[in-house]
């Protein structure tokens, strides 16, 4: 990977917007390597002005992360409160199993 810091943040924002969990997981691993300064570092030596550009990109990423959290909490709450239509299947955390089975049409 050869991304500058701002590009990396923009990429994370795009991936989060489309809920691309796999890409985000890749980026998380890359970021860990970056933070360790380890064997797979992302080229992130900051050029003059890059920190402020990256900070601006972080602002957007933060906003998208905020709405994602709000959406996640909303969907989770929705599932919790829809007891009539949905029922909890024990032994499978965060798995909500529709009472109707779809009969193969889903």
């Amino acid at each position, binding site marked *: 990977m050869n991304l500058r810091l701002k590009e990396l943040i923009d990429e994370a924002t795009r991936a*989060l917007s489309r809920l691309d969990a796999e890409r985000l997981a890749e980026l998380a691993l890359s970021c860990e390597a970056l933070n360790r300064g380890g064997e797979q570092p992302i080229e992130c030596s900051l050029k003059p002005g890059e920190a402020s550009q*990256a900070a601006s990109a972080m602002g957007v*990423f933060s906003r998208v*992360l*905020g709405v994602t959290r709000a*959406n996640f909490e909303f969907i989770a709450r929705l599932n919790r409160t829809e007891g009539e239509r949905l029922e909890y299947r024990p032994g499978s955390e965060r798995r909500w199993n*529709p009472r109707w089975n779809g009969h193969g049409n*889903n």
Partner: protein
Amino acid sequence: MGTINSAFQIMSGALEADQSALNVVANNVANANTTGYTREIPAWQENTPVEINGSSYGSGATETGSTSVRDRVLDQRLQQQQQSASSSSTRLAALNSMQALFPPDSGSSSSAAGDIGSDLTSFFDSFSSLANSGEPTNDALRQDVLSAASTLAGDISNAAAGLSSLQSSLDEEASGLVSQVNGLTGSIAQLNMEIQSSSPNGDAGTLEDQRQQDLSQLSQLIGVNQITTENNGLSVTTASGQLLVSEGSSFDLTTGLAGGLTRFFVGTTDVTQALAEGGGELGGYLTARDQDVPNAMSSLDQLAYDVSTQVNSLNNTGTDLAGDNGGAGDIFYQPAAVAGAAASMSVVMNDPDHIAAAGANAATGDNSNAVSMANLAGQGVVNGKTPSNYFAQFVSQLGSTVSEVQAESTAQAASVTQLQTQRDALSAVNLNDEASAMQQLESSYQAASQVFNILNTVMTSALNLGVETAVS
């Protein structure tokens, strides 16, 4: 016989039920690519058990129709997010057009077209050149002052004209949405009647899909609230509560002109401000038209008024080459009020001899008044700020607003995409099931949080390093 008949009936009923269910499946598959179609699931009802030789046996199930898999709460949230997303993306486009009217300061001593920041520097520099030349009577240097004044006035009045033109086009776009809004509210009212007559107690299937489609389109145009009423009816109001649809009736948005701009009404109530705050494309257009453009115009007016007034005032206190002492005349057109000052800014002095470079009662070779006019560049004459700083702050503030709305627009668009994914998983014909869609949302959020936390640490370190470097 009764036993065999009963067994046959159970079997026959089961086959019929299966066939009905298969029809529902076939309908789902056939509509897989129909926009707004909501997946249906067969509804089953257990038949009354039969008694055979004193024992009770189940008699199977009958398919009693189909029910659309929809979640009105999720639909409503999606529509609310669509309203916000449409509003911010529309406003962002207008802000980008506005920002293009104010190119960043080139930093050059010669003004580029439209570069008001450089124009201000050049204008006050021209007085410095005149004052410091040692020959304040020099005609070429005096001509340079008028030329720089003309460039400054031209760029400010052009920017004002650009803002007015932008405001007019936003107004036109906003009023053009009214017929679409009225068409959709009329359609929703019509669907209300059909739904209430055909399915007062249950899901109305494709009719409900159509109504949700119309609501979704309406949400992209204006901010609305929806209220479910009896017998599967639906009332729709503006975000501020003005009724647009009630049962089978719709209430049109109407328009009227006031001060050259369109006002919006429901009945006799002026809902313009409420629509601006409500969201949707119309909200975005109106926010840009009634808030962003006037704010920019107001700043530009203040700059034009104060620069013109201060320069004219000083010119009228000095002595010009014609010997006018204290009445050399105005360099710029003197606006009567702040409002409209930018649009009317122009140079009214034709003869450079009337530039009063000399001080009051001084000989024409004196330069003290030219020095005073050059010094305006460093004085807080525009709302307590120097002209250049005032303009730089205005441009910077505009840039911040654009960045803020850009971030908001990105976030809102992301939110719509995410909720659409959840809705599709639930109610569209899709192989993903609801649980996996939610898990995708959760996994993405968790991974993104991890990315954010690490990057935040990296950014904090980088910025701290920057501060330490600056201090050392």
